[in-house]
């Protein structure tokens, strides 16, 4: 359903109906971007609003790519993106890395495999390995499930696992982290990836090259697949945008980020 809303917003925005675009004003802040970072941004915004009476913060969960575009176009004040690095189209923007978000490789809890090397993960998602028995599991065909093209998690995963443009054509695609987890939870032969926050008892997160998927291992850089969460502004942030970013980078903001299951940068 969210997709439909987004479609509507995009259509409305482009036809100049301007239904969803927020104009920058002194006590209103519009954030747009990463669906993965949205829940965290919501918590940060709530805490920020508690300290600044009369401020409204509008958060639009539209995906990293559209978030960057909206900041460029001046529709949003602050963009949110979870990506492995700052992409070409955002080079002109001012970027603040506020946290790191690990991406866990997940399988069904009944799967005998508990650890994969980075190389094995790459081979599975690029279609070179198609049977669980080749990585120490049961003799069963692997169902590869990935995120839709353009999702921040997909870009991060493909870039860091080094399979950009090589993902197997027979991969199934899901439009959100939750949907990926849901499919893996139902299918004993499936493999997918979701952000750490999304991991729960319905799936099993694998060790990657022997490293546990934990906030600590993301923070010290041992865990290999993690996105950087960026807040982006057009030019130096001013006014409310600057105050908000300062708050996120400060001790209180970073504590909220840690409580949400992300690795703070400080």
């Amino acid at each position, binding site marked *: 359903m969210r*997709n*439909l809303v987004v479609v509507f917003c995009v259509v409305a925005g482009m*036809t100049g109906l301007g239904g969803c675009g927020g104009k920058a004003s002194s006590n209103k802040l519009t954030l747009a971007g990463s669906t993965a970072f949205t829940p965290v941004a919501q918590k940060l915004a709530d805490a920020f609003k508690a300290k600044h009476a009369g401020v409204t913060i509008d958060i639009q969960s539209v995906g990293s790519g559209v978030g960057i575009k909206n900041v460029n176009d001046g529709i949003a004040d602050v963009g949110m993106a979870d990506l492995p690095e700052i992409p070409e189209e955002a080079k002109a923007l001012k970027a603040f890395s506020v946290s790191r978000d690990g991406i866990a490789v997940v399988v069904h809890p009944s799967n005998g495999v508990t650890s994969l090397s980075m190389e094995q993960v790459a081979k599975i998602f690029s279609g070179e390995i198609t049977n669980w028995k080749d990585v120490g599991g049961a003799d069963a065909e692997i169902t590869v499930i990935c995120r839709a093209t*353009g999702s921040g998690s997909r870009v991060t995963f493909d870039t860091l696992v080094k399979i950009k*443009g090589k993902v197997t054509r027979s991969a199934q695609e*899901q*439009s959100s982290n939750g949907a990926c987890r849901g499919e893996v939870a*139902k*299918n004993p*032969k499936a493999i997918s990836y979701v952000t750490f926050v999304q991991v729960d008892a319905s799936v099993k997160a694998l060790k990657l090259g022997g490293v546990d998927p934990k906030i600590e291992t993301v923070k010290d850089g041992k865990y290999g697949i993690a996105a950087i969460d960026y807040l982006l502004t057009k030019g130096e942030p001013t006014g409310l945008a600057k105050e908000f970013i300062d708050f996120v980078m400060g001790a209180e903001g970073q504590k909220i980020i840690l409580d949400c299951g992300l690795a703070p940068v400080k």
Partner: protein
Amino acid sequence: MKQDSAIRLILLGLAMSSVAALAVITLFIFREGLPIIFRQGPGSFLFGSDWDPGAEPAAFGIFAMIAGTFAVTGGALLLGVPVGLGSAIFLSEFAPRKVATILKPALELLAGIPSVVFGYIGMLVLSPFIRDHIGGSGASVLAGSAILGIMILPTIISISMDTLRSVPRSYREGSFALGATGWQTTWKVTLPAARSGLVAAVILGMGRAVGETMAVIMVTGNTALVPKSPLSPARTLTANIAMQLNAAVGEHREALFACGVVLFVIIMVLNTFANWVAKLGKRA
């Protein structure tokens, strides 16, 4: 008199507003989507089998999605048409009044269930069932067809019933007078008289299936490959647009609008055909 013409003007304006909305949408979809089709060539866009916006250079061939759309829709018709037409015939020709008064509201309720609910049930019940008892990964053309087959029932049944009911009573009375049984009358007289409306009902049901998005995304697995069997996953045109528009920029976004153009043309052809068939029946 003055009041009359004022009201007529207002009503005309209201009527035109929906046409205007259609015009704006059409213009917009075509303006955004057509350039890339012609830049790339309609042949390679429509029949190219590679869809990979992330690759360099990006590949935009939508044949797998067209095939997916028609596979899922075809399956839905296989299931929905016999059940739908059967129900309509029963309800309008044979059902005792009491049964009809229960079944008709139930069907209207079925039409009111949001598609995401159908998708959710399909995801939790149907696709695991298919995986465990029939085979494959569960997310499949079969799952999509089964869900859509149910979703198009209200469309098919209500239009078919209207058509059957509009067959003049005198036709049936004439048939009975000649000594025909109830079924003979239905088969030899009522159905042939209603034929064009029934075809239109099926075509409109098909249009409904082609356009459905959410329920299909949730059960078909969305693999961008031409499905090899009913148990293979598939991606429809609508699913492709809804899943990727979130993060699409530049050419990728244009290509998604081009998918919209293709969908638009498919639906337009189906509706025009349905109208034409229905009119043909009225003239005969």
